[in-house]
């Protein structure tokens, strides 16, 4: 092919790229192919830990995401909540991202209702408090310090589930679903300072940051992005849920981005490595 052609490719209007990405994301949403999702060990270990817990023990599922990262993290948190409730575990939850407080409350209510769980007895939502790092340290001493009342204004002592539950040492484990750098605080304070067993569910771009903590066993599991959520859904036997259904679109979009990179590089070399962006 001539250099002129590759020059044309290099100068292609970016709106064509936007259009292609739009189409390759949208079309697989219409027709579910069901690409096979392989289970990774880091996701399996979160599942195994929850599976090994005795009914009635308390799992803390703090959720820090807002509508921006909800596409990745909401399927994940829903799968974890479903797993906990189906195993008759009690769930304690917080939301340290102000834009997501209502989103998370809504999810908790809906999924708890699916399993016939009762608020205060089977799950408790503490809601939001500013200055997350200080709140995490405070919760390590006593949940009642930063949260004398829950999200709905009930005193923690009035909630049956919270009787005798003082701090992280009363929890079986923490599975933090986090779309912010706040995940670091959970590692530093909840795990580092207070020794709480911790797993993380984070966005795909964040996941690479936490493999070091997985290796050092500061976290016992890691669920990364929508793929991690799809794995978790598969583990709990919900293969048709949103994360699995989105895997087709994610796969095709990734392939097209890789194709764009390859075409861009061919054009770059064919046009004599001109320094252009």
């Amino acid at each position, binding site marked *: 092919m001539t250099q002129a052609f590759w020059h044309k490719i290099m100068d292609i209007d970016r709106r064509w790229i936007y259009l292609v990405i739009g189409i390759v994301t949208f079309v697989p949403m219409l027709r579910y192919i069901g*690409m096979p999702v392989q289970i990774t060990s880091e996701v399996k270990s979160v599942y195994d830990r929850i599976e090994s817990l005795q009914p009635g023990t308390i799992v803390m599922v703090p959720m820090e995401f807002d509508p921006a990262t909800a596409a990745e993290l909401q399927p994940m948190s829903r799968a974890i909540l479903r797993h906990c409730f189906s195993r008759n575990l009690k769930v304690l939850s917080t939301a340290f991202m102000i834009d997501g407080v209502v989103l998370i409350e809504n999810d908790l209510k809906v999924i708890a209702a699916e399993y016939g769980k009762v608020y205060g007895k089977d799950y408790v939502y503490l809601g939001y408090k500013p200055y997350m790092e200080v709140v995490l340290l405070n919760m390590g001493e006593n949940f009642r310090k930063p949260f004398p009342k829950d999200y709905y204004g009930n005193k923690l002592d009035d909630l049956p589930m919270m009787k005798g539950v003082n701090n992280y040492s009363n929890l079986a484990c923490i599975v933090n679903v986090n779309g912010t750098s706040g995940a670091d605080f959970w590692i530093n304070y909840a795990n580092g300072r207070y020794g709480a067993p911790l797993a993380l569910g984070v966005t795909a771009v964040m996941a690479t940051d936490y493999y070091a903590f997985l290796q050092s066993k500061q976290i016992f599991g890691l669920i990364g992005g929508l793929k991690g959520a799809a794995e978790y859904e598969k583990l709990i036997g919900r293969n048709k849920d949103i994360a699995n259904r989105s895997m087709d679109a994610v796969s095709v979009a990734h392939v097209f981005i890789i194709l764009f*990179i390859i075409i861009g590089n061919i054009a770059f070399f064919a046009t004599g490595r001109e320094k252009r962006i």
Partner: protein
Amino acid sequence: MKREVPLAIVFICGTFMAFQYFVPHYISAAIYQNALNWTIIVGIFTLVVGIGSLVDLHYDRIRFRKDSWKYSIVTLVSLVLMTVIGLSSPNAIQNPRGLFMMIYFYVLSPVIATMFALLAFFIASAAFRAFRARNVLASLLLLSAMIVMLGRIPIGDMLTGWLPEGLRFSDIARYILDYPNTAAKRAIYIGVGLGVAATSLKIILGIERTWLGGGQ
């Protein structure tokens, strides 16, 4: 005195918080607990400073017709509107059919999600235009990024499923994440940790004083 008092407070609080970690005595624990409560209370006041600063900045933009001043009007109107609607209904956040929550679900939520979703398009365009194998290091980055991308999606395993275990995209991606990535991240974390410790020490001892402000 204007400088000495804040320096003394930082020295006393910093030194105490560093040492109390190693002192399990109940007095130390009680002071620590109180310090945590104080931090939240003091922190709340920064909200006032933050709102004041936001209003100041956008008021100035509108007043002097600076770049994009019209967006500043939207910011200030939204700030006032949401505050008034929120305060006018005592349980605004717990009423899904109330105006406050309607604005959250049908305006704010889609706006935030849309802004973030646009990233996919920008990343695709940027990948096409900027991700070039200009030299050996850039080529290594390019190659590992492509392998990790393919290894993290189902199609990666479909493409290399016929290969023996250990050679599939997901296995190579896992190796990249577990070893080169973890080694680099760990080095960065240790560096950052040492930097934070050194800077904290300088602040506690009053060597680093830029946080006092004043420009000098």
